[in-house]
């Protein structure tokens, strides 16, 4: 039986800020308090650190919400380059915004309190407080039509998984800061389970609707199921970091279930609530009921804006790992991708 003294084990240590602090020092102060969002954030750092130090763990990043246009593009590209993320599962839109910058477009600081009809008249799109010129989308569409032609010609009717598709895109982009380019160079899979639900879909419409077009790009969403499940099946352990949730989170979780393992590590950053029944807000306890996360998994949900939370987690963990830390992902060591 649990006794009263067993419950009252660790007193709250109050946060002390005496002079300058590094990010990790601040996170460790949060850990001392162990309370509310601060406690959850520090736990998330601990879990991500353990994922990276576990040589048998394949680390997935599930990406939903407009974090790439908001400023997380280089951070994600760097994590891939430094082998601190092994597989990315993303909305099509986030990767579209990477492609926009890769072909010379930009995202601009804007404001949420603006006349949206004025923006419409000036051909400017709004993502909360970010502005994107319409022409940056259009220039990318124009480029994508040519890239799709080239991929279709090279693959001669063969269907590609979304992972192959993103590598083909990365191969044809020259921007060294691009997520797509870095993923191609490091052979890091990027899966886009809802690829058509983004500007990639509109570019396909242009590519396929032209007069006398004979070679069409083919992307087969079901191929993804086989590939991502195989990665999970052959990885001794699997961990995920989720930004937002939605289809990318469920894609990782479903693959974990299909491979009969369930996730060993999970960090979910979201502002959604569980009461709607939507996946983005569903608790990790609920995920255990499906067998998608192991009961004893190292897991935490952090309620907050991923644009603040995720860079803090990364900065803290990189500081802990130190400059000499090197990691070769299990999927690369064991050549699970057959590249």
């Amino acid at each position: 039986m649990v006794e009263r003294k067993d419950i009252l084990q660790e007193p709250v240590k109050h946060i002390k800020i005496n002079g300058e602090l590094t990010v990790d020092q601040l996170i460790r102060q949060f850990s001392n308090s162990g309370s509310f969002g601060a406690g959850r954030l520090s736990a998330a750092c601990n879990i991500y650190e353990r994922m990276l130090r576990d040589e048998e763990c394949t680390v997935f990043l599930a990406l939903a919400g407009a974090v790439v246009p908001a400023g997380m593009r280089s951070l994600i590209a760097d994590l891939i380059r430094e082998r601190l993320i092994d597989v990315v599962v993303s909305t099509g839109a986030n990767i579209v915004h990477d492609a926009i910058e890769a072909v010379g477009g930009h995202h601009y600081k804007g404001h949420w309190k603006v006349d949206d009809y004025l923006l419409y008249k000036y051909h400017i799109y709004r993502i909360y407080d970010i502005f994107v010129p319409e022409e940056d989308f259009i220039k990318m569409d124009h480029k994508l039509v040519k890239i799709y032609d080239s991929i279709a010609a090279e693959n001669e009717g063969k269907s590609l998984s979304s992972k192959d598709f993103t590598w083909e895109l990365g191969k044809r982009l020259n921007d060294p800061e691009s997520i797509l380019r870095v993923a191609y160079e490091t052979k890091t899979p990027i899966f886009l389970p809802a690829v058509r639900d983004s500007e990639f879909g509109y570019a396909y419409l242009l590519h396929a609707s032209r007069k006398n077009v004979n070679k069409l790009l083919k992307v087969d969403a079901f191929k993804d199921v086989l590939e991502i499940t195989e990665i999970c099946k052959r990885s001794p352990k699997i961990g995920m970091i989720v930004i937002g949730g939605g289809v990318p989170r469920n894609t990782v979780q479903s693959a974990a279930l299909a491979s009969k393992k369930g996730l060993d590590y999970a960090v979910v950053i979201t502002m959604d609530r569980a009461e709607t029944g939507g996946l983005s807000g569903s608790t990790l306890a609920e995920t255990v009921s499906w067998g998608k996360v192991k009961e004893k998994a190292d897991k935490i949900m952090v309620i907050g804006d991923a644009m603040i939370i995720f860079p803090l987690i990364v900065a803290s963990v990189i500081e802990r790992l130190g400059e000499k830390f090197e990691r070769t992902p299990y999927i690369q060591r064991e050549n699970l991708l057959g590249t």
Partner: protein
Amino acid sequence: MEKEGFSQEKFCGNCDNHNTYNYPDQVFCTLRLLQNKNPIVETLWHCAEWIPSTQGCYCVQEAKKNKTKK
């Protein structure tokens, strides 16, 4: 009824098929792309398939201002 800021003149910049390409001077014409023609055309140009606009955008008036300046 004429929409606010909407020009009845025939210009690519007020056609249904236009998107901006180099604002405000060039637009991207989806129809031309689908016909395998160069889709990038002048805002103040128009083709035979001009379709009356539903877009109340500023392309034409801004392009006209630019042209006057030049």
